[in-house]
């Protein structure tokens, strides 16, 4: 039981990190960034390339090296997110939803098969493996890397929350989410803020990608597809557009999956979480923490 909760918490913190990017972008420009899961994949591959280029790393330094690689990968994936927004989404602002969504599908495809063309279609083994002791906490087995990765994820989320709540850019983001035209009139540089939102969301997804690569040890160019869908589920469960909701949704989805695969068997895990997504969308589309939104005309 505690083991299930612990596993759910661990997987859930990954989902939460990716769901944040989904939710922030959706909250601000009502765009469903279909390529967000592939940014996670991109992060994993950038981390892979950096670690490979650094050569052999002694096991004692692996954590420090991982942190540096994590930061650099976050910068690069953040830049990639900004570039994608500039090229594929900004020209379509104000265009019908269908056009933007199809453009996002195109971006997702380009990222997946671009990486496949560069890095090869076969799965790659990550050059470092995190090792550490296993603890018994209340009957659950938790390893040191799990705890470290969860602390990193929690740290990033706390930092993000501070940024959104306390800084002027964060305030600008919240005001654009409420009403972008009014924000423009109030002197907010809307485009700059949107760029920054894409940077942060993509950087968080990239961080999740590096961490997943280091923890699971295997990456491939389609790894972002399912996790993108799951992160969207998490964002919807928590209430899309809501930052705290995305964190909560990630954890809830982690629990739901852990218990679902315990009850129904692991091969039904994905079916179970998509069923939860569909249930939420039909019964409570605003999620747990979301407020009721009426579609403006």
């Amino acid at each position: 039981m505690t083991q299930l909760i612990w596993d759910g918490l661990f997987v859930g913190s990954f989902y939460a990190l990716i769901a944040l990017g989904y939710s922030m972008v959706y909250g601000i420009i009502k765009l469903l960034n279909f390529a967000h899961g592939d940014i996670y994949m991109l992060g994993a591959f950038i981390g892979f390339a950096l670690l490979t280029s650094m050569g052999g790393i002694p096991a004692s330094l692996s954590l420090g090296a991982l942190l540096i690689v994590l930061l650099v990968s976050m910068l690069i994936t953040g830049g990639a997110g900004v570039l994608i927004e500039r090229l594929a989404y900004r020209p379509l602002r104000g265009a019908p939803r269908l056009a933007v969504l199809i453009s996002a599908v195109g971006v997702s495809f380009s990222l997946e098969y671009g990486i496949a063309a560069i890095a090869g279609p076969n799965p790659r083994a990550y050059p470092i493996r995190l090792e550490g002791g296993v603890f018994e906490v209340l009957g659950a087995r938790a390893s040191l890397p799990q705890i470290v990765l969860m602390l990193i994820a929690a740290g990033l989320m706390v930092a993000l929350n501070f940024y959104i709540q306390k800084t002027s850019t964060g305030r600008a983001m919240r005001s654009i989410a409420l009403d972008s035209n009014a924000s423009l009139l109030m002197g907010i540089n809307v485009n700059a803020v949107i760029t920054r939102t894409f940077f942060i969301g993509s950087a968080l997804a990239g961080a999740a990608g590096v961490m997943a690569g280091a923890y699971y040890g295997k990456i491939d160019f389609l790894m972002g597809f399912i996790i993108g869908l799951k992160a969207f589920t998490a964002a919807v469960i928590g209430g899309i557009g809501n930052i705290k909701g995305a964190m909560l949704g990630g954890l809830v989805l982690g629990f739901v999956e852990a218990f679902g695969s315990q009850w129904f068997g692991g091969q039904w895990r994905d079916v179970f979480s998509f069923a939860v997504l569909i249930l939420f969308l039909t019964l409570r589309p605003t999620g747990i923490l979301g407020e009721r939104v009426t579609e403006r005309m």
Partner: protein
Amino acid sequence: MSENVDATLAPQRLGPPRSPISRLLESRLIGWVALAAALLAPFVTASPYSLNVMTTAAIFVLLASGLNIVVGYCGLLDLGYIAFMAVGAYTAGIISKSFELPLLFTIPAVLVMTILAGLIIGAPTLRLRSDYLAIVTLGFGEITRITANNLSVTGGPSGIFGIPGLLKIGGLDVENPAVLYYLTVLVVSLFVLASARLGKSRLGRAWRFVREDEDAAEAMGIHTYKVKLLAYIFGAIWGGLGGVLFAAHLSAVSPQSFIFLQSALVLMAVVLGGMGNMRGVVIGALVISLLPELLRDFASNRYLVFGLLLVVVMVFRPQGFWPARGYERERATVDVDPPAVATEQGR
């Protein structure tokens, strides 16, 4: 949302086409020419390989014309369209194997199952906003595939094989690739025609209205939910029949054939060809299914190219390479009215 009502997806120009080239492209003859080309193709090359490629391409055209109803006419983004094909193929395969029936006799059951699938997927989700719908259909597509992968009645990961042929009458054996090809072309051209006619019907006009402005359509008395559900059901039927042809063609069905990539390829055919324009969609489907066979160097990087093309087309030419236009003949008289009316409709 009024500033978003898209001038891009709407027909740009009313009245008959003006230049000789566009008049040629819009003429009714072109459909017959395409059919003749499809019928004559085996006389040019009839190796088992080329027949295989052509039959696959014809089935792909059927799928694209079905998805065109959902995405092109009605403007609902379906990212899990291949699930309908999976339902059709599995239903046909399971029934024909367990009762030793030719595939033709499974079609009523396939129709029932695909319509049911369309209702199950459509009914709860069509009230959602369009971008949620995209993700939910994607989720349903994955659920269908994973379920087929896990159940024992569907044969698990290895699927169903040794499915009987479409039909056997006396000496005419439909398992012969050439006969199957002609049968496929016949069925596909009928359904492409039906889909094009549907687009011009009363229902088709309602679909376009819903696509352009759902609120206005609702205000004009169109039951938008019902109309959207109908688009879904028609799309499902097209997909299910594509599944039957697929099962007849390969005589085997496995979950690997129904991954997201396939849904995305069908979507690309519809989008690149020109959403809502059946001729453009047929050409898009032929290009997407045949180009990798013709250009081997292109085949390895085709998905990257398709992905980039999707973005480029959406940014620079959102209506596709060959968009629908001037589809309503009566509109030609509207041009005579005071220009204010014409511009109002043109927008």
